[in-house]
């Protein structure tokens, strides 16, 4: 058979080569002899069948929330992460960041060996050498003060760590979550007695958020999103949502009404709503119409229970949070929508930024003999004004447990790379009284790393005669088993579920740290010079910078601005017009702390007196490394600056922020003013947005909640952009439009010359019995984009934005260049359309509609007849199939696709020997063996996860049964934290999708084109305020 480049690159079956599990796995996968070898196991593992997935329940450690995850492994490798349906926190959903943990696991720039910095050069050392070196250093550091900065996590590791530190006479560690809202936590503690009460959106009548971006990462976003979507999908009594703040975040875009107050004026509004201040004063201070505030205030009074949330970024965050708490208490929220009894314990034991800053001052003062950093990167996210590097350098022994070559690690002199959470044991306590278990889903990617940080610490302690007796365990796993209530047998029972009741011993150690030296001046709001408030916020995808080394997250467009692989400055269009700033103009943003340069993004949802910049980008290396070049890449060279995907992408907004904290000790994000100036440079933004407006084309349709309870009216039908008087054929506007082989493949369907072969309804193979279809509920969809990442993970979709993934000769090269050119490969994409305020005037509210757009699997697909080689066609079970190996790449199908959901392999993203290769070793370990990796020159698109259909059919055949309704679903539907996507067989009424498609909100996009799509959208539901006109398309 001729060799076909479609699938060169990672050979699906090469996975067989690494069946020899732990040993020689790396060596085996790279080589590809022309003949091909089949390498068997030495000893066959009991529980695995080659080619069949094994699933492990574990816990996500990508943020503090600690959702339950299921890791799908195939032949010894984790290939997909999904939410654990049994987990009480996330109920099976998982956000994009959680799913991207895989790319942390397989990150090509992961540190593989312990290293020591001697005289400015890094030298690899052995694990045992590292143990010896640290043990020796600890001996010298005893009594000189030791600081351990750890990424905040719940569970028993903090206790273990504090115990270890105490053994050396060090203070308890700093448990840092830079993105967490300390003010809200502190206010919760004071008001409800818990750090984070459970929030119930679905019980609320009115949700009012003061900058609390509960869909973006504020708090535990996945459970919040699940509940919020449930609330909004209620047909009767769904809560209205009002967002107060100077910038509409993703959460703000989901609000029915935006109160665009001036930055820093939230307190006045909150006080006014809480009855502690006058509406008039709030209106003056915030620049918001008093009538609007009055209307909201009376609405709060009338809607009980309310759910008011605070998450402002100003220095007065605690005050706002307390005022908001007062609104809740007055609004009957406690116990109804805010449930302290079901506390989320993920944030317990967290240290504040103020404490961290205090320790930095201790370092600067030379009071610290040894410093440890694990999982967090203060050198990146602490404002440059603090001069962290300078202070850190005064610590004689600096130890990093980071897996990645981040900025802080580069400042250290000893690095002992940690194991990834998917390779190691652990636990978390996300909800009071539950233990979320973390178990290795696979053997370590790099066997040179012999254990996690805890294992390392145990090994070090064993070197100390005084401590050795306390650490008799051989590994942290043993320690955990001992600590687990019920011990090993109970653990064995709990592990398959990933969750257990009880607690791993005492609560996290009380913060017995010395009080922070009072060297931090809390700046009053709005200091500095400049015309604009500088709003900064943690990126919902990259956080404060942690996600930047994962290409999935870099490539995932920001849910609000749709920009990826870049930083940007949001500026209101009215302001931009006044200053003559165009989209993509590079601006110098100057504060009293410095200047950064980033392109402008005119955005309706930012206050006209403010600009907004997200955090997360701007990773840099001290070493001034040359740009990454895959052809000349030396694997032994450490890619400082957080790896090839993060280094020198965008700018670091912390460079221009002052070091200020709020009264609760949390970092104050929005405190400074800035001036902007045009630099004259302009670039096309690496954005996936074409036009932000629908131009009346009815792609994202919406209706008012009040219409839902009324009988349907004729005018409820959207005006279609085509011929207005077009008479539709019967069958259209049906739940799932008729298929090519007839009305859902019914044997009674009329033969239109299509009842041939497998398409014959009476064919014994029965493929026409099924019509795979999908419903997408726009009332639920929040635009979070978790489905997009799920699709990337499931379908081996390449990321294309890295700056080297371009042509070789005379080619421009910058991050996101392929995105600028519209060459992104997202099989499912989140379109974000604005409605209303066409003029872009400030003060006029607008509505946002999110539409997940994917292949519609049309019954009459325009793409199919134009393909000259039958590479795309309509399968008897209703799929629009793309056959990669048949595709010659005419791209005609894409031209003819009204939905523009076909993506072309412009380069050999899937071919390992090309510089544009999207899965450099070991990222390719993640590739789904059931899905062909596409070579250059072929078209690809959403397949409705046909590999999952076939797998389920194979399983059903093996078990001699038929498919069970809702037995399986696509990756996007599985991941969706809003449960907006439902997928299944529309021809069988027992599948949920067949029922949902009958919803009166159902419509097809571009129905007038007679494409007979299999994707049914359910209209978004708006909740306009009584008396306030809702924005319409």
């Amino acid at each position, binding site marked *: 058979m001729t060799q*076909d480049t479609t699938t060169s690159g990672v050979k699906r079956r090469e996975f*067989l080569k690494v069946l020899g599990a732990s040993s020689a796995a790396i060596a085996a996968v790279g080589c590809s002899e022309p003949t091909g070898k089949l390498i068997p196991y030495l000893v066959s593992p009991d529980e695995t069948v080659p080619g069949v997935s094994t699933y492990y329940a574990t816990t996500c450690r990508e943020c503090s929330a600690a959702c339950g995850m299921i890791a799908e492994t195939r032949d010894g490798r984790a290939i997909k992460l999904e939410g654990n349906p049994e987990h009480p926190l996330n109920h099976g959903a998982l956000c994009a960041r959680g799913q991207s943990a895989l790319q942390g696991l397989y990150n090509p720039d992961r540190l593989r060996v312990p290293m020591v910095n001697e005289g400015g050069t890094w030298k690899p050392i052995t694990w045992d050498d590292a143990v010896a070196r640290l043990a020796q250093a600890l001996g010298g550091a005893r009594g000189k003060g030791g600081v351990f900065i750890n990424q905040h996590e719940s569970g028993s590791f903090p206790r273990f760590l504090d115990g270890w530190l105490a053994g050396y006479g060090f203070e308890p560690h700093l448990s840092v979550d830079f993105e967490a809202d300390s003010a809200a936590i502190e206010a919760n503690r004071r008001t409800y007695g818990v750090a984070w009460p459970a929030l119930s959106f679905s019980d609320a009548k009115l949700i009012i958020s003061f900058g609390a971006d509960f869909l973006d990462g504020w708090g535990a976003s996945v459970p919040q999103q699940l509940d919020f979507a449930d609330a909004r999908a209620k047909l009767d009594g769904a809560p209205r949502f009002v967002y107060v703040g100077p910038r509409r975040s993703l959460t703000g875009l989901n609000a029915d009404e935006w109160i665009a107050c001036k930055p820093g004026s939230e307190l006045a509004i909150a006080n006014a709503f809480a009855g502690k201040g006058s509406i008039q004063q709030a209106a003056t201070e915030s620049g918001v119409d008093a009538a609007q505030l009055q209307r909201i205030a009376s609405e709060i009074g009338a809607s009980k229970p309310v759910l008011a949330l605070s998450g402002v970024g100003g220095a007065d965050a605690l005050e706002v949070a307390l005022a908001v708490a007062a609104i809740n208490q007055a609004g009957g929220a406690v116990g109804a929508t805010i449930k302290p009894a079901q506390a989320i314990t993920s944030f317990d034991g967290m240290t504040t930024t103020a404490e961290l800053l205090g320790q930095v001052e201790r370092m600067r003062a030379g009071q610290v003999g040894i410093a440890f950093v694990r999982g967090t990167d203060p050198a990146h996210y602490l404002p440059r004004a603090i001069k962290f590097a300078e202070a850190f350098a005064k610590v004689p022994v600096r130890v990093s447990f980071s897996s990645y070559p981040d900025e802080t690690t580069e400042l250290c002199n000893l690095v002992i790379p940690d194991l990834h959470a998917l390779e190691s044991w652990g636990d978390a306590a996300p909800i009071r009284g539950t233990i979320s278990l973390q178990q290795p889903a696979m053997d370590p990617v790099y066997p040179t790393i012999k254990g996690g940080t805890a294992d390392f610490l145990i090994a070090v302690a064993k070197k100390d005669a005084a401590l050795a007796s306390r650490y008799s365990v051989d590994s942290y796993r043993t320690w955990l088993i001992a600590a687990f209530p019920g011990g090993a047998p109970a653990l064995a029972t709990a592990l398959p579920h990933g969750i257990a009741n009880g607690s791993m011993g005492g609560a996290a150690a009380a913060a017995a740290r010395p009080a922070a030296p009072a060297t931090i001046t809390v700046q009053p709001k709005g200091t500095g010079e400049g015309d604009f408030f500088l709003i900064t916020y943690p990126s919902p995808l990259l956080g404060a910078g942690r996600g930047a080394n994962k290409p999935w997250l870099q490539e995932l467009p920001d849910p609000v601005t749709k920009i990826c692989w870049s930083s940007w400055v949001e500026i209101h269009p009215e302001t931009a017009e006044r200053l003559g700033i165009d989209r993509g103009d590079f601006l110098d943003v100057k504060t009293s702390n410095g200047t950064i340069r980033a392109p402008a993004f005119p955005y309706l949802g930012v206050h006209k007196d403010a600009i907004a910049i997200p955090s997360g980008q701007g990773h840099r290396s001290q070493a001034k490394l040359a740009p990454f070049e895959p052809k000349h890449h030396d694997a032994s060279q450490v890619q400082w600056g957080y790896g090839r995907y993060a280094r020198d992408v965008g700018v670091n907004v912390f460079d221009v922020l002052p070091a200020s904290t709020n009264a609760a000790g949390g970092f104050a994000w929005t405190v400074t003013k800035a001036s902007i100036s045009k630099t004259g440079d302009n670039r096309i933004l690496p954005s996936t947005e074409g036009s932000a407006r629908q131009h009346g084309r009815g792609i994202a349709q919406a209706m008012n909640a009040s219409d839902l309870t009324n009988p349907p009216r004729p005018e409820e039908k959207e005006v279609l952009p085509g011929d207005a008087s077009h008479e539709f054929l019967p069958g259209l506007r049906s739940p799932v439009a008729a298929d090519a082989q007839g009305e859902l493949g019914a044997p009674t369907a009329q033969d239109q010359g299509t009842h041939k072969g497998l398409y014959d309804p009476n064919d*014994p193979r029965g493929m026409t019995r099924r019509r795979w279809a999908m419903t997408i509920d726009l009332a639920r969809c929040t635009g979070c984009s978790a489905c997009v990442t799920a699709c990337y993970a499931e379908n081996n979709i390449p990321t294309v934005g890295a700056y080297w993934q371009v042509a070789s000769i005379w080619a421009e090269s910058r991050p996101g260049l392929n995105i600028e050119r519209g060459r992104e490969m997202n099989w499912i994409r989140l379109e974000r359309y604005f409605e209303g305020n066409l003029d872009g005037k400030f003060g006029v509210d607008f509505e946002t509609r999110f539409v997940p757009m994917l292949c519609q699997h049309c019954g009459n697909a325009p793409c199919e007849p134009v393909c000259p080689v039958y590479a795309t066609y309509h399968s008897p079970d209703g799929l629009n*199939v793309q056959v990669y190996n048949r595709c010659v790449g005419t791209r005609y199908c894409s031209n003819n696709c009204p939905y523009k959901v076909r993506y072309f392999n412009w380069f050999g993203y899937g071919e390992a020997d090309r510089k544009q290769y999207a899965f450099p070793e070991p990222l390719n370990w993640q590739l789904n063996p059931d899905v062909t990796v596409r070579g250059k020159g072929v078209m690809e698109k959403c397949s409705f996860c046909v590999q999952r259909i076939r797998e389920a059919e194979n399983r059903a*055949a093996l078990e001699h049964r038929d498919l069970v309704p809702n037995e399986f679903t696509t990756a996007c539907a599985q991941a969706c934290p809003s449960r907006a996507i439902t997928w299944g067989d529309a021809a069988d009424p027992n599948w949920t999708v067949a029922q949902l498609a009958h919803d009166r909100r159902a419509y097809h996009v571009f129905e007038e084109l007679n494409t007979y799509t299999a994707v049914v959208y359910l209209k978004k539901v708006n909740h306009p305020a009584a008396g306030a006109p809702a924005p319409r398309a």
Partner: protein
Amino acid sequence: MNKFTNSRSFDSHPIAMTKRRQWTAIPGLLALAIGAVMLSAYSGASSSQHGSPVQPIAFPHTVHVQKLGMNCLYCHNAANKSMDPGLPAVSTCIGCHNMIGPQRPASDLGPARTSAEIQKLYKFADVAGMGAGMGANAKPIPWVRIHKLPEYVHFPHTRHINAGVTCQTCHGQIQKMDRVYQYATLNMGWCVSCHVNGYSPKEGLEAAGYADQPTSATLAAAPGGSAAPVALATGERKKARYDCANCHY
């Protein structure tokens, strides 16, 4: 009298009024070209057919299957439940061969003899000798791949085995192969022909060595179990889906 007038490029020249010319066979060249095109179109239909590489250990399927009557699924244990048929782990080999050593005693009618191949196996498995387990330095055996479908073809062994397709249908009479070779062309037309025209359980069973009068006992023992006799009785050929997305996705 009337000579050709002179021109710039052609001088007039006396030409004999009769010249004998040979015209060559342009049509022949044309036919040659067409032939070459057709040849190249059909070449590559199965370049790997009959390929029979030398394996690191000359594993005799004849002995294991034909003589000892071992079931294919004993070693290829995932074939009926996975896309991949599975290769026997080295420990599977050693499971039997720590009793059946390289110095084989006189058994049946044969004399005692030495098997160099089992020696090789012991070397791979780092086995000290008879009865000993696998050593610490055991290495997997680097078998050379014979049957290889392109990466874009997803071939589920499980569906075929469970539909009663005998291994021999596609792999040829492995039980008679001293050295395994690629029996079928494995090209797409070969796959599709069977899917469209149907699989004959009778022919499959004959290939599997149940040629002589399949009895209900042999049929029940055959892969596919009880389904086979029915199909056999009705003489029906089992047809399968030939939709592209069954294999290509």
